[in-house]
């Protein structure tokens, strides 16, 4: 009964509300703030003791530390890698940890990996025999970690669970804040062929001499990051979202065949014993050679080595401090050269390791490009803190690790190479060496945000390439991303999207953020403000874990420029920029009151005899005789009288003589708010560049007008003449309008002739 009453009442209440609603007028609807200039309070996390509102690390900022001691054996005969590692993990967080997460990246290549299950497969138009056998008759590669044991420091087995590329180690006792825990893992895996596998690490096999060149990375179980932003960053490694790692110290002994040349992260403590006396002497020379590389292992020596296959071994003793990862390259095929670079008051070694197949290109360019990158990045960010940077040549590669990276760019077998192979190689070396800053030292979360290292690095790469060759065909210019930005919206993601789930990875996470920073520097902040802010971000977050908000906030904090509109448009939306000239109206000065003037005069009781009027030459109020007034200040008595009475002759001569009046209306078919950059060319050939900040759009997102006055007639107006705004449509950028035939039409004409 009670229920029924309630129901009846509810129905009544509903009816009453419905009736009331009907009576109300619909225009009573309000709205939330939808301005494109509103602050990013809803998008950015609330500042806290870990990360401040200024974008700097806060007083309670912490990060974990993971130190590794490893004994590694490279089995060149069977392409296997064996390792025993001791991990000492320091919990600097205020939290108690009951388990640890360890990354097993090699498991992406395990025969039971789920990565292929989220990829796709289809038939090819045809198969030659080799491809047929490889595609349909081969066994799946037996990759992935084989874990022999996980033990505590006393040798007692620890309980662990593997979920694809992540391993959870359950701790016997919870780990308290500020405590350390040591455990051991023994493992081995089959090394993959990175050329056929298209992988970031592995070996390349050289059929001609039967040797392998190994580029070894993600090769040991690595601690996952635990921090105030993600807790455990244990998102699986599917393949696109790269790595998120803690800083730590490394002691690594690597046993290789005795005829191998090896380089890797950190110091080689016994390098003198690893090289021949002659080579060691050449290395000492390189330490003092600031103008050109010294070849330490020569082509002759490498060619001799690649003819043999030593059954003896030697052990390289490596030590690295404060690095977030460890990688190495090893082969008997390697040549090795190095030169010294002055960074601040320190000497850093720029080095290269390459098989003879890379020459002459590699000997000529690699180490010099490394040196240029170290110098440019140090100037823009902070001095390179490590003692060396190595560029290793590996086919089709481009992958970065602390102090060492793999780079492609190979001449043809006869040693010749095209300009595009050379430029590709210079570009990739600059990019990968540049990664030493982003993310190796400014240690952002790659698994979550690809743009934070790739975007910022692609931008800085452009500065280094420009320094190396001022006409270098860099790719991150704003004009190069317009085709991407005005594409079908269903195939574009905002840059603030997870690494694994973006359409058009290269454009989304490399080119667009790089171009956006280029625009910020060239057009919005200018070099001084931008460079200081960018450097401040680098200084604040070196050897730490920044998040996107820390970057956005620092750029504003150090420049006194509210950029929330910029971050919102470029990073949180897929909007593009398209600003056009809608119309240009010419006005003449007249003493004949316009209709509007008469209306105002009547309403407020003004005497129009004391006024002059601007008349739109396109309006019906315009009469040809109005053109007779060529010099308004002389031809119109009320102006002439006023000037004569109030200014001396000399003063009058200094006044701006406005004779030509234009109202320019800009429209904005694009969703982004951006500054208006207009180049005005006058009839006498002189040029005036106008810059109206993005805020001009704050009250009207569709169109805005400006009155432009001058003593000269305007011949033409062109928007964004230097192509700095990524305007996707240039057809509406000119007044008077210009038409250009398409690339297709031009080519067709050429062919038909």
């Amino acid at each position, binding site marked *: 009964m009670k229920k029924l009453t309630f129901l009846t009442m509810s129905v009544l209440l509903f009816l009453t509300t419905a009736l009331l609603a009907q009576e109300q007028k619909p225009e009573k609807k309000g709205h939330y703030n939808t301005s494109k200039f509103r602050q990013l309070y809803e998008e950015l996390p609330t500042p806290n003791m870990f990360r401040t509102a200024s974008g700097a690390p806060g007083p309670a900022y912490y990060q974990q530390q993971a130190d590794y001691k490893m004994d590694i054996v490279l089995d060149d005969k069977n392409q296997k890698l064996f390792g025993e590692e001791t991990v000492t993990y320091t919990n600097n967080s205020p939290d108690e940890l009951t388990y640890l997460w360890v990354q097993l990246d090699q498991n992406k290549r395990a025969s039971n990996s789920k990565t292929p299950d989220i990829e796709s497969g289809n038939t090819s138009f045809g198969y030659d025999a080799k491809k047929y056998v490889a595609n349909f008759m081969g066994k799946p590669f037996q990759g992935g970690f084989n874990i022999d044991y996980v033990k505590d420091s006393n040798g007692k087995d620890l309980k662990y669970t593997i979920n694809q590329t992540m391993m959870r180690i359950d701790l016997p006792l919870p780990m308290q804040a500020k405590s350390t825990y040591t455990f051991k893992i023994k493992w081995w895996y089959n090394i993959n062929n990175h050329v056929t596998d298209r992988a970031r690490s592995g070996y390349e096999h050289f059929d001609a001499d039967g040797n392998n060149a190994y580029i070894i990375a993600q090769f040991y179980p690595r601690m996952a990051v635990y921090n105030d932003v993600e807790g455990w960053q244990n998102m699986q490694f599917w393949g696109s979202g790269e790595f998120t790692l803690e800083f730590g110290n490394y002691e690594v002994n690597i046993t290789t065949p005795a005829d191998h040349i090896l380089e890797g992260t950190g110091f080689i403590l016994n390098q003198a014993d690893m090289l021949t006396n002659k080579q060691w002497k050449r290395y000492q020379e390189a330490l003092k050679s600031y103008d050109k590389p010294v070849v330490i292992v020569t082509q002759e020596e490498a060619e001799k080595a690649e003819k043999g296959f030593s059954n003896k071994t030697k052990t390289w003793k490596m030590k690295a401090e404060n690095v977030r990862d460890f990688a190495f390259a090893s082969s008997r095929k390697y040549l090795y050269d190095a030169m010294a670079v002055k960074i601040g008051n320190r000497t850093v070694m720029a080095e290269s390791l390459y098989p003879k197949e890379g020459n002459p290109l590699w000997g000529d360019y690699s180490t010099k490009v490394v040196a240029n990158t170290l110098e440019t990045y140090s100037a823009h960010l902070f001095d390179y803190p490590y003692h060396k940077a190595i560029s290793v040549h590996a086919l089709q590669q481009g992958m970065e690790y602390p102090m060492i990276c793999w780079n492609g760019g190979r001449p043809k077998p006869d040693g010749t190479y095209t300009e595009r192979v050379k430029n590709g190689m210079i570009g990739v070396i600059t990019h990968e060496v540049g990664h030493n800053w982003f993310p190796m030292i400014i240690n952002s979360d790659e698994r979550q945000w690809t743009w934070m290292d790739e975007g910022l690095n692609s931008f800085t790469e452009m500065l280094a390439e420009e320094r190396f060759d001022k006409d270098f065909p860099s790719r991150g210019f704003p*004009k190069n991303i*317009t085709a991407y930005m005005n594409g079908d919206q269903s195939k574009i993601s905002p840059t603030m999207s997870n690494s694994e789930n973006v359409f*058009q990875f*290269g454009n989304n996470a490399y080119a667009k953020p790089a171009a956006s920073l280029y625009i910020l520097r060239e057009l919005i902040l200018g070099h001084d403000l931008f460079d200081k802010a960018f450097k401040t971000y680098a200084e604040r977050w070196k050897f730490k874990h920044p998040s996107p908000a820390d970057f956005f906030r620092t750029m504003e904090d150090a420049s006194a420029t509210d950029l929330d509109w910029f971050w919102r448009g470029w990073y949180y939306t897929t909007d593009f920029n398209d600003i056009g000239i809608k119309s240009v109206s010419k006005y003449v000065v007249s003493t004949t009151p316009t209709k509007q003037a008469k209306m105002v005069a009547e309403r407020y009781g003004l005497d129009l005899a004391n006024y002059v009027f601007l008349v739109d030459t396109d309006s019906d109020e315009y009469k040809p005789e109005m053109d007779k007034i060529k010099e308004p200040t002389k031809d119109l008595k009320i102006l002439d009288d006023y000037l004569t009475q109030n200014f001396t002759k000399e003063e009058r001569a200094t006044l701006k003589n406005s004779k030509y009046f234009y109202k320019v209306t800009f429209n904005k078919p694009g969703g982004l708010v951006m500054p208006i950059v207009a180049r005005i060319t006058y009839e006498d050939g002189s040029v005036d560049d106008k810059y109206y900040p993005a805020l001009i759009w704050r009250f009207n997102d569709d169109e805005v007008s400006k009155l432009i006055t001058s003593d000269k007639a305007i011949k033409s107006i062109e928007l964004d003449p230097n192509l700095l705004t990524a305007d996707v449509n240039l057809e509406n950028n000119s007044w008077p309008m210009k038409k*250009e035939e398409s690339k297709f039409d031009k080519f067709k004409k050429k062919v038909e002739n």
Partner: protein
Amino acid sequence: MTLLKKLLLLILIPLMAFGLHKYYISLTQIDYKAQEKSLQISMRLFTDDVEKTLTSNFKKDFKLDTPDELANTNKLLEFYINSHFKVHVNGKLLAIKFLGKEYDQDLVYFYIEIKDVASIKSIEIENTILMDEFEEQQNIIKLNIDKILKTMILVRDNDKDLLNF
């Protein structure tokens, strides 16, 4: 207006291969010119990728974009394009005409025309160019048909797409 010219040259540069991983991408712009009853197609690809694919298919050293480029490159290219790029309009497979190619830095542009297209009610594009060589190849198609802009992203597993108007 040289700026526009420049832009048209660069507008199709795909911004991939930025270090790290090389991105295997091509970009095809398809414009329908109703007055001329013509589908105008320009396809932008990396010269290196094209060279590698042609070499695998035809077992020849093409030496693209060099003075020694193989004499019948365009013929073989036409054969390759014909077997990897198919356009159906209103359900009918149309004959394509390969006009030629043009190099720009590390890129190559193919120009293709389809004539006598009176109207478009539906268009299906199949583009497997370079996919036989590169597993990760993505072929992006941008269509501009009667002022309607559409993008298709074609990959091995999904190498054709249909649009109805």
